[in-house]
C-alpha cells in the first residue's frame, strides 16, 4: 500500500463522514435541549435542494451554504411550532417532517435534474495540496474545516458557557429550569433552529462536495445515520466526531475492500457492514444506559413535551 493510496482512502472517508457529522452536531444540540427531532433526513434534503438551487442561480457555493442553513432552519420551524408551541408529539411530528422534506425537495428539484453544478473547491493554494501529505491537511472542501470548527464550538458552548449550561438544564429538567426563570420554549426553539440549519448544511454537502448534481432522495437515508450517530456518541460532541469518522470508515472500507477483491466480505456480508453502525449504536446505548442510572449522558427530558405548570 503506497502513501498515495492511503491518502486517497483518508480523503474518501473524510468526504463520507462530513455530512453526518454536520447533521449529527445539529441534532445533538437539539436533543441536549430535550427535543427529539426525527426529521433530520427531511431537513437534509431541503438543505440539499436549496444549496443546489443557490449554486445554480448564483454560482457561489459560499452563498449556497447560507441558503441551505436558512432552508433547513426554516423547515425545522414547522417542527418547532408544532411540538413546542402547540405541544404536539415529537416522534410523529419528526416523521411528518421527513415525509414533507422528501416530498418538497423532490417537487422543487424537478427541473434541476440532469444538470451539474460547480462544486466547492479547496480554499488553500494549490501548492499546499500538491504534496500528498499536504493534501491530507489542505485538500478538502471548506465544509470539512467548518465541521471541525463546529465540533469545537459546540463542545465549548455546551460545557463552558452559561447559555450552554442553560440549554443542558432545559434538557435535563425543564420544570426546574422554568422555575428559575429560563424560557424553556425559547431555548428549545433556538436548539431546533440550530439543528435544522446544521442538517441543511449537512444535506448541502452532497450537491456542493460529494455529488455535484441533484437527484431525488440524494442523501440516501443518511439523516437516520446522523440520528444513530448522536446516540452512539452518548450526546458528546467530541465522541460524535470520532463516531462520524468510525461510521464513515465502515462504509468506505467496505467499498475499498470490495474493489481490491479481498475476502473482506467473506468475514461479514456487505449488508452486515451496512447494518454495523446501527448495531453498534444499540450496543453503545445499552452500555451507557446500564452503566449510569438515568441513561448516561442522555438528556432526561428527551422527547417529552414541556407544559409549564401555573
Amino acid at each position, binding site marked *: 500500500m503506497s502513501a498515495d493510496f492511503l491518502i486517497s482512502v483518508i480523503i474518501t472517508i473524510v468526504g463520507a463522514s462530513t455530512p453526518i457529522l454536520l447533521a449529527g452536531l445539529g441534532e445533538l444540540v437539539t436533543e441536549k435541549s430535550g427535543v427529539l427531532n426525527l426529521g433530520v433526513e427531511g431537513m437534509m434534503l431541503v438543505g440539499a435542494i436549496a444549496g443546489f438551487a443557490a449554486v445554480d442561480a448564483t454560482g457561489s457555493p459560499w452563498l449556497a451554504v447560507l441558503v441551505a442553513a436558512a432552508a433547513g432552519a426554516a423547515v425545522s420551524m414547522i417542527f418547532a411550532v*408544532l411540538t413546542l408551541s402547540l405541544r404536539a*408529539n415529537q416522534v410523529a411530528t419528526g416523521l411528518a417532517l421527513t415525509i414533507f422534506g422528501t416530498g418538497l425537495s423532490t417537487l422543487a428539484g424537478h427541473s434541476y435534474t440532469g444538470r451539474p453544478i460547480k462544486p466547492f473547491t479547496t480554499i488553500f493554494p494549490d501548492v499546499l495540496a500538491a504534496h500528498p501529505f499536504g493534501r491530507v491537511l489542505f485538500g478538502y472542501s471548506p465544509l470539512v474545516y467548518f465541521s471541525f470548527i463546529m465540533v469545537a464550538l459546540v463542545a465549548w458552548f455546551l460545557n463552558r458557557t452559561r447559555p450552554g449550561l442553560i440549554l443542558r438544564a432545559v434538557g435535563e429538567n425543564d420544570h426546574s429550569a422554568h422555575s428559575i426563570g429560563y424560557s424553556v420554549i425559547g431555548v428549545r426553539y433556538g436548539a431546533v433552529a440550530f439543528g435544522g440549519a446544521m442538517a441543511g448544511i449537512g444535506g448541502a454537502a452532497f450537491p456542493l462536495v460529494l455529488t455535484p448534481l441533484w437527484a431525488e432522495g440524494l442523501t440516501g437515508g443518511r439523516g437516520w445515520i446522523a440520528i444513530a450517530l448522536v446516540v452512539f456518541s452518548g450526546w458528546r460532541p467530541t465522541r460524535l466526531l470520532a463516531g462520524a469518522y468510525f461510521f464513515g470508515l465502515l462504509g468506505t472500507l467496505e467499498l475499498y475492500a470490495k474493489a481490491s477483491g479481498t475476502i473482506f466480505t467473506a468475514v461479514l456480508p456487505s449488508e452486515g457492514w451496512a447494518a454495523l453502525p446501527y448495531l453498534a449504536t444499540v450496543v453503545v446505548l445499552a452500555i451507557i444506559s446500564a452503566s449510569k442510572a438515568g441513561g448516561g449522558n442522555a438528556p432526561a427530558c*428527551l422527547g417529552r413535551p414541556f407544559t409549564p405548570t401555573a
Partner: protein
Amino acid sequence: MRLKFERRAEPSRLMLYASPVGAVLLTMLVGALVFSLIGYNGFGAVYQVFIAPLVTSYKWGDIAVKASPLILIGVGLAVGNRAAIWNIGAEGQYVVGGLAGVGIGLMTQKMTGAWILPSMLLAGIVGGAVWGAIPAALKNWFNVNETLSSLMMTYVAIHLMNHMVTGPWKDPTGFSYPQTPLVTPSQTLPILVPGTYVHLGVVITLVIALILWFLMSRSLFGFQVRVVGSAPSAARHGGFSQKATVWMVFLLSGGLAGLAGIFEVTGPFGQMSLGFPQNYGFTAIIVAFLGRLNPLGVIIAGIVLAVTYVGGDLAQSVLQLPNASKGIFQAMMLFFLLASDILIRYRVRLVSSAPAPAMAAPARSPAE
C-alpha cells in the same frame, strides 16, 4: 395581543373527533391553493387524491388492501402509545415478520396442505414479536430508551432482509434478481372478492382491530395500559407492573406488525424483494395519531391514508401531478392534525399582553 392556552378541565370530546376531520378538510383547501399557486391544477389534484378513490367503486378494493397493513400495525402502536411506550420500529418488525414467514414458505415450497398458510402466519407473528422483544428487553433490563433502540433495529432488520433476498433465499430460477420465489397456491391468502385482490388478511385485520377496541375500552388490560401511560405512579400503587406492560406492548405491536408483513408476502406481494419495506411501519405511526390512538379511529385513519396513496397514483395518471405531491399532502394532513391536537386539552384565547384576569370556570365538554 398574544395567544393564550387555557387548560380545559377535561379533554374536549368535540375537538377529539372534530380535529381529524378539520385537518383533512384544511389539507384539501390549503393543498388546492398551494398547488394552484405553483402552477398545477390544485383543485383537480385534491379531487383526485381525496375524493376520486372514494367515488370510484373499483378503487374500494385497492383502498382496503392498502389500508390493511396500516390499520393492523396502527392498532398495535396505538395501544403502545396509550401506555406512553414508543415503538417506532414497527417497520423492522414488519420486515422480520415477513422474513420469518418466508422462511417457512421456503421449507414448504414443494408441499401442499391447509396447515402451511397458518404456520406461515404464525411465524410472521412470532418473527415480529421477537424483533419487538429486543427493544423491550433493552428497556426493561438496561433502561434503554425504546424510541431510539426500536428505530435502530429497523435498519438492522432491513439490512438483514437485503442479505437474505440477495443471498441465501434468492429465487434459484429468478436469473439472480434479488427476490425470493413466488409463494405457492397453498401459501397464498384466499381472495375474498373475485376480480379484486382483497384477501383474507383484510378481514382478519378488521377483526383484530375490533377485538383491540373491546380490550382497550372494556378490559382490565386496557385499563392497565392507560393507567401506566397516564399516571405511572398511580400504576405502581395499583400494582400494575411497568415492566410487564412494556413486554406486553412490544410483543403485541411487534406481533401485529409481523402479521402485517406476512400478510403482504402471502397476499398482494407474493414474494419478498428489495422493495418489500414500504414504510408501512412509519406511516402507521401517523395512522395511530390520526386515529386518536383508538382502534376504531385507527381503522378510519388507515382508510384515509390509503385513499391518499391510491388517489396520489390517480392524480398522476389523470393530471400528471408529480408523485412527490402525495407525500406533501400526507405531511400537511399530519401537520394540521398535530397542530389542532392542542384544542382537545386547551382552549385558545386571544388576550392582550397584560395579564389576563382569572377566567370563569371552563364550560363542560359535551360528554363524560
